[in-house]
């Protein structure tokens, strides 16, 4: 059934949208490779993009475990992302107004603890609310968090942001100096182009390794959680909360667990971002980040983890791809509004024509063995089962 062992069978098993996505990803990957080979895309910048895509995938996973699994409309994604970024930045940065200078691993712990506290603090008042009230209330509370980060200068350095954030592996035995020690490699794949693999490339590779670890870890946890009895309760709550309550489930508690779990993953994305960007500012808590992540999740298909991954890649393509347009002088409009316009049109078109998303969850909710062992066709016909065929 694998794509490598039996490509034809794998292709035959895919639905039409899945084929489209596989095709689009293939074309996109070929374009990227071409860009790398011709030198349009610098290898280090390419890895930065991969890091960003991984970060959006993490954010989408987080939102997916709230909205996709449990049906919680959380519009405070940016707050958890920003708190994760600020948590680690304030612990580890050289210009931090409070603690500072700690190892990033402590920053990671601090960020996760902060996010868990905030999740409970936002969850307690809002999770009892009706769905649309939850959306408005969580957006309002996220704005409160943004205002606090913006105005409490003694703690957060205010609108100036925090600089001097170390890379994630600073203070680690081997990994800290690994990028400097690796040799510079120069390759000439085509005449006239030259690929440079030097220190920035190696440290970007290290960043990608971090985000891949985060993504893989979260994916494994979420996949297991989603298929567990716990995940089944969440899906029941999403489908019909009254039913879940009638079955004796403490829905508020389950919602809170799902909310905290998702928020921790969002904070993890923030931690990665802080050590990728090496600078955080209150603008990272802007509500537009929340809506980017929402587009990623809806586009991918609510409840589907692979869809979240796909949505994350599309969002980075929109965000960074529009940056490329800056290079073309003939485009008469500013790029920033073009990006917002694209996001807006994408939301409207999706909700109007394909609200379930491009890759809605299908088999990933079921144990694979169940699918593999199920017969393709019934072993006996309906008529035989009815003992005879005299109904025509």
């Amino acid at each position, binding site marked *: 059934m694998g794509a490598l062992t039996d490509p034809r069978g794998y292709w035959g098993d895919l639905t039409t949208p899945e084929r489209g996505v596989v095709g689009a990803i293939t074309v996109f990957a070929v374009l990227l490779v071409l860009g790398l080979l011709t030198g349009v895309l610098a290898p280090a910048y390419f890895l930065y993009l991969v890091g960003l895509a991984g970060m959006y995938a993490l954010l989408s996973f987080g939102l997916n475990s709230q909205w996709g699994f449990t049906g919680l*409309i959380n519009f405070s994604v940016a707050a958890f992302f920003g708190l994760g970024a600020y948590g680690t930045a304030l612990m580890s940065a050289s210009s931090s107004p409070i603690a500072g200078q700690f190892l990033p691993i402590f920053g990671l712990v601090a960020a996760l603890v902060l996010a868990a506290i905030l999740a409970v603090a936002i969850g307690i*008042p*809002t999770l*009892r*609310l*009706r*769905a*649309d*009230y939850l*959306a*408005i*209330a969580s*957006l*309002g*509370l996220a*704005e*409160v968090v943004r*205002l*606090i980060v*913006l*105005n409490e200068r003694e703690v957060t350095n205010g609108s100036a942001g925090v600089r001097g954030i170390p890379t994630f592996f600073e203070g680690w035995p081997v990994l800290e100096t690994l990028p400097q020690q690796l040799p510079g490699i120069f390759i000439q794949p085509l005449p006239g182009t030259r690929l440079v693999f030097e220190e920035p490339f190696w440290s970007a590779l290290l960043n990608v390794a971090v985000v891949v670890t985060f993504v893989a870890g979260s994916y494994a946890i979420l996949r297991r959680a989603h298929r567990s009895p716990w995940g089944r309760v969440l899906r029941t709550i999403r489908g019909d909360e009254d039913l879940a309550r009638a079955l004796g489930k403490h829905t508020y508690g389950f919602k809170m667990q799902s909310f905290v779990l998702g928020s921790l993953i969002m904070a993890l994305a923030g931690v990665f971002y802080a050590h990728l960007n090496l600078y955080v500012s209150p603008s990272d808590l802007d509500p537009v980040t929340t*809506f980017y992540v*929402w587009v990623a999740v*809806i586009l991918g298909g609510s409840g589907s983890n692979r869809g979240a991954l796909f949505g994350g890649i599309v969002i980075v393509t929109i965000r960074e791809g529009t940056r490329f347009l800056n290079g073309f002088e003939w485009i008469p*409009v*500013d790029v*920033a*509004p*073009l*990006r*917002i*316009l694209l*996001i*807006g*049109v*994408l*939301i*409207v078109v999706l*909700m*109007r024509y394909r*609200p379930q998303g491009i890759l809605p969850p299908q088999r990933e909710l079921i144990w694979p063995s169940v699918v593999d062992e199920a017969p393709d066709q019934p072993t006996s016909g309906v008529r035989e089962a009815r003992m005879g065929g005299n109904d025509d």
Partner: protein
Amino acid sequence: MVVDYLASGLVFSSIIVLGSIGLSLIYSIANFANFAHGDTMTVGAYTALVTFGATGGLGAGLLGLPLGFFLALVVGIVAAAVVAVLTEKVVYDGMDAGSIELLITSIGIAFIYRAIIQMGFGADFTRYDVQTLRPIEALLPYGIRVTQHDVAIVVSAFILVGGLHTLLQYSDLGRKMRAMADNPDLARVSGIRTDRVKLWTWIIGAGLAGAGGVFLGLYNQLSPRMGFNLLLLIFAAVILGGIGSVYGAMLGGFLIGMINQLTPVLGQLGELLPLVPDTFAIPIGIEYANAIAFVIMVAVLLVRPRGIAGEGA
């Protein structure tokens, strides 16, 4: 000092009220939280900017504003209504979706409005080309610093809200709108053409939002994000007043606007209140004015989800 805050609270409230009535109407009749409502205000503001730029200082002045400005106001109202009705026809109408899907769609609509405005006018702040006025001299001895423009905002808002009240209470359409807000299904089986009422609701709600946007631009400045920045305050007002109740939205808008402008008082409580030591103060600055409104909103949702004008939880 407090009188001055109250006066500016009244001005700001007028703008919030104009926004919150429309949001509340659309919430109750189209049955979703319209996140594009703030950007509808922006549409009104920028249309007025263009119109005013074309007509300029037409005719004599009224309350420090040329008559051309009032023409621009009307055009802004009409433009906001037209844009909202077009959006309803093209996007929302015929969508087989629940309130959550519509809510998310309206976020997309909000982005589209904002992006188009930003493409045309840039992200920077602009102003209406009207003279900046000094506060009215006669009121200064009482400690009130308001300009004639502020008075124009309050008076215009009063006229618009009064007009809506008359419409709701004394016209056929108003009765149908109230019936539909109360119980859409009952209204439909009673023979009310609910589609037409819904359309009028969009026109009235978005028109008032357009007026609110024009006044917001006159009160502060214009920027593509102006309406979106105000949206959560308007939601706070609507929720405080009680979703679906037009009069609740007025009351909620008034209270939220007042609370917003009265925030500095918290830092001077000791000096203002008798029997309290002078040094007593709640150390929350004006920068948290919006945050206070959002916290009130969440508190209201928890304690009394149907708002102060609602029938209770």
